[in-house]
């Protein structure tokens, strides 16, 4: 385990940025935080998860597929410098692990891996949550992890790339290892994790009536904030942009909460109501993905609940769902639940 004092951090990032395209949490002029290039704004590692989806580094809102300029085809190039990105909380890292698997499975998505394959991902944990709250260490799912012990950053490499990057840093003399911090911060499964698992059970058992989705769907204003903020939402549309000499084909994030998401050229729409679309958004994460991938694809980052103006983010819906239709024989049932 290595150590970086707060004074050494800026020097470390400057060194990293000589080789890598460094992106990290920064403080924006409006007081919010975002993952952005190192030189764009003051670094702001403290404060917990950033509001935007961190997986946008590899699955951006818009990505070029190809460009035809004056009749000549041009494919996007692999970036000159690989990405070094820091700012993933352990829950964000779980999201990244999930979509890594999604984009690699079957047809390997070259647009995603163009940026992802040589990137170094660093996790953030420790006493760097909102108002200094403890974020338990990830212990993996990344190349290296930055853990804030309240005074310094402890840096733990997990991959060869991570080890090479931290090799020149001083070793930590702290008697506390990350494992000891993990044990000290260990908590019983939190309420939201239990809620999500129980909601998943209910959906997989098909015990949620259509009337529930009609009611929840009525509240959706189709702002698509939930999808745009979700680190495991991977749906996209394809669009050609034409100008006088150039046509660019690109792909852009899409939202299953929009009426046109599945509408076919014939006019038929398998998701022709807010109820069906809202059900699809929740069901996909909690029932379809467990069936296909063996795990729930919501890792409780909380972004959709934070951005939804009408209170139908994932945890909010799971809570309503469990409250109304909760299983009595659930394996996740807690006393009084």
């Amino acid at each position, binding site marked *: 385990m290595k150590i970086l004092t707060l004074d050494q951090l800026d020097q470390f990032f400057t060194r990293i940025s000589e080789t890598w395209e460094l992106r990290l949490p920064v403080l924006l002029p409006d007081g919010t935080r975002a993952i952005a290039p190192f030189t764009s704004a003051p670094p702001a590692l403290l404060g917990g998860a950033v509001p935007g989806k961190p997986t946008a580094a590899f699955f951006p809102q818009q990505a070029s597929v190809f460009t035809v300029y004056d009749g000549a085809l041009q494919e996007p190039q692999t970036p000159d410098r690989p990405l070094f990105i820091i700012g993933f909380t352990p829950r964000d890292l779980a999201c990244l692990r999930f979509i890594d698997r999604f984009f690699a*499975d*079957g047809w*390997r998505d070259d647009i995603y891996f163009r940026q992802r394959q040589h990137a170094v991902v660093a996790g953030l944990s420790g006493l760097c949550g909102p108002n200094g709250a403890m974020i338990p260490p990830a212990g993996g799912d990344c190349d290296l992890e930055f853990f804030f012990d309240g005074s310094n950053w402890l840096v733990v490499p997990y991959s060869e790339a991570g080890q090479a990057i931290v090799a020149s840093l001083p070793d930590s003399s702290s008697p506390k290892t990350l494992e000891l911090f993990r044990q000290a911060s260990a908590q019983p499964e939190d309420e939201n994790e239990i809620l999500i698992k129980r909601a998943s059970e209910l959906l997989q058992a098909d015990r949620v009536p259509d009337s529930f989705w009609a009611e929840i769907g009525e509240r959706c204003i189709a702002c698509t904030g939930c999808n745009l903020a979700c680190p495991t939402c991977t749906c996209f549309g394809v669009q050609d942009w034409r100008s006088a000499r150039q046509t660019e084909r690109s792909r852009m994030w899409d939202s299953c909460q929009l009426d046109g998401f*599945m509408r076919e*050229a014939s006019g038929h729409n398998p998701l022709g109501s807010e109820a069906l679309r809202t*059900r699809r958004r929740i069901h996909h994460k909690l029932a379809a993905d467990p069936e296909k991938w063996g795990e729930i694809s919501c890792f409780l980052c909380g972004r959709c609940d934070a951005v939804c103006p009408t209170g139908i983010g994932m945890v909010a819906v799971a809570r309503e769902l469990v409250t109304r239709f909760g299983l009595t024989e659930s394996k996740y049932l807690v006393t009084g639940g």
Partner: protein
Amino acid sequence: MHSSKQLYNSSSLYLPFDCEIISIKNLTPAEKLFRLRRLDGAALGHLSGQFVQVSLLGWGEAPISVASSPTRDGYFELGVRRAGSLTGAMHQLQAGDIIGIRGPFGRPFDLAQLHRQDLLLISGGCGLAPMRSLIQYCEDRPEEFGQISVLYGAKNPEHALFKDDLAVWEASASFACSLTVDNISSGDCYSGNIGLITALIPPLSFDPAATIAVIVGPPVMYRAVIAELKKKELTSDRIVVSLERQMRCGVGKCGHCTIEHLYCCQDGPVFRLDEVEHLRGAL
């Protein structure tokens, strides 16, 4: 089904290859048949039931089923209805023009399941385009199948697709072929069946233990046809459906064609009925 695949030598999965339009034939006032070949001379390499992503620069991409059998060498055909901006632009093209193609994609008809079986090939409207690929295959390899019955329903005589093919199939000793139209206009020169395609099923006599029904048609058709087939004691594992969805990528990434946990572009578009009949929104 989910092993890692790399189809093209191209650096990108999303880059189409060039195909030349060999010929264009008007099928109906709204549908044309495009005969194509790859510019590099290679075969498309498709199987009946698969689709391609048609790419028109400036218009994007659209999924279109292949309407010809892989047994027909040197070309492949796409039946295209003018329904949106891309298909509208495609209808303006001429023989000799170049378009982009990605694919073929999707799970084809399972020829092992159909082997030596009597086949009921039931299609409606545009559904005859993907079905035609299978029918042509049956024409070219009749020894692989039992008795073949083609049932086709169109809105009216004018909108019936592949009229030349239907005439050949009706005259063929290898096929039983029945056409029906929903209605006719006063000036139509038509003396065949009038009514929904479901009306063609009750008179049929077949052994449900030796018969496979394949259905391709508009969404409204499936439940009604399946109900008629089940009255004839055909079980769900002997009914095959091909489902239309708006695939945007063809490779299981864009999310537009999901049916619960299934991706229609990869797990389908061809499914056995027992694989999907319990899934919300499948039919």
